[in-house]
């Protein structure tokens, strides 16, 4: 089992979710975040003074998948989230020791 962390542009959420559903991913969790990276922020003027907005709104998706789904899921995300412009985001894969479904106490891949 692996944890896939994907950082994407917010307006791509729906497409990514649909792409993942298609390949059989059954669950995930999304959090709002602010990203810092090559895609720089911008400056604003408020009452005559400039200020920098350094961080860019991003969404962070997290999903734990069985090992066989890591490839397809990564690809699905990459394809759906891609605009080709700077700031599209990243996909990280991390090892997972165990998983459990709270409702049923199932564990391992059954919990996903």
């Amino acid at each position, binding site marked *: 089992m692996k944890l896939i962390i994907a950082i994407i542009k917010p307006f791509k959420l729906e497409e990514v979710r649909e792409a993942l559903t298609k390949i059989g991913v059954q669950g995930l969790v999304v959090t709002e975040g602010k990203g810092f990276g090559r895609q720089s922020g911008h400056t*604003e*003027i*408020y*009452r*005559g*003074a*400039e*200020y920098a907005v350094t961080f860019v709104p991003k969404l962070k998706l997290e999903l734990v998948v069985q090992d066989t789904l890591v490839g397809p899921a990564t690809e699905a995300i990459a394809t759906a989230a891609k605009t080709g412009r700077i700031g599209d985001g990243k996909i990280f894969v991390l090892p997972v020791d165990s998983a459990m479904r709270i409702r049923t106490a199932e564990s391992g891949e059954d919990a996903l």
Partner: protein
Amino acid sequence: MTRISPIRLDDFRGTNPMNKTLLLGAATALTFLAMPASAQDSGGGVPADSVFVFNTLLFLIGGFLVMWMAAGFAMLEAGLVRSKNVSMQCTKNIALFSLAGIMFTLVGYNVLYPGDGNWLYEGWVGNPSVKDIKLLDEAGNPTVAAGDGYSSGSDFFFQLMFCAATASIVSGTLAERIKLWPFLIFTAILTGLIYPIVASWQWGGGVLSAAGFSDFAGSTLVHSTGGWAALAGAILLGARRGKFRDGQVHPMPGSSMPLATLGTFILWLGWFGFNGGSQLALGSIADADAVSQIFANTNIAASGGALAAMVLTQLLYGKVDLTMVLNGALAGLVSITAEPLAPTMIEAMLIGAIGGVIVVFAVPLLDKMRIDDVVGAIPVHLLAGIWGTIAVAFNTQTEISEGVARTMSEQVMVQLYGIGLVGLFTFAVSFMLFLILKLFVGIRVSEEDEYIGLDAAEIGIEAYPEFGKGSQSL
């Protein structure tokens, strides 16, 4: 532009030296003036009792409209401070309005209107005493005669709201860092003494009135007074932490633009009462025309101020700055307040527009001077107030109560004298007062309290507990 307008109505807001015995309140002399034109001649004119009711009604309507401005200041300020200070700003606004209501009753009103012989120092400081109104006797009969031309309770109500507005101006500038109670102590003295003394110089028949100063509804007496006090406080308090860091200005965007917009609209609405009610009489065709002209002028001055700020920020920054547009509308209103009657509408528009321009340049200028004015009250109320007061002279060549005619430049000098006198006094007294508070009580919250916000630090009530970093947001 060398017209002679013989008798300016606002000169009669206060004492008319020739009719001292009649002086019972703000509008007495005015009514006296108004009567010949209306009530006393009954050939189609308005009967005296009707004049009384009309004038009273103008005060009451004007008064509730100006009262509503308290909500406007509260919303404007709540919208322009950061969310961690919003509850505090609401608290200060409702507290200062309440306090003004009480201090003006206990001390202020009688200081403002010393009338005949109730001066502590003739022309300068009225005798403080309680104004405990009781208008009807046990038998339900009025305690004051119809000849007064209006109910003195309605005048009190109206004047009180001006006093409260002065205090509201201060709270915006000093937001996000001044402690609650020291601010309220200052407010009590501002509304009980400082404002009443300043206003008495003109509207109470004091030195400025004698000098021929002209300030119809209070560009200087109300708005600049508030602005000077705010400036003194801002200097002594210092800027919000982080505002001027590393030689740069770091804006701290306000938490809610719709509330700031709402506040501005409320103030705009209330200003019809502020300026229109300052005609002090409605019981004749001339007065009805005057109030109408004032409404029309007040509105277009605000329009001019808003649009000027809009166009200017677009040109300067390539983007319209909404907060400047809101400030611009208010600056337009402040600018026309010193003389909303005499200008034609086009003139009123230009006067207001210049107010808007002043704001756009003054806001960054204050930043350069490291004076941190959270809501822009100093540009809006102090600077546009000065401009409006000077502009009076361009527009009219007044023959004032003493019967002296003046040239425009003579009148400019009188106006500058008034502006200077009010500024010197208000700034000096406010500065001393804030200094005393600073030394003996402390006026500024601690660094940590400022960081966590005054809501958490001083009153323990979050403005938006479920949004942003609110404690109930999980």
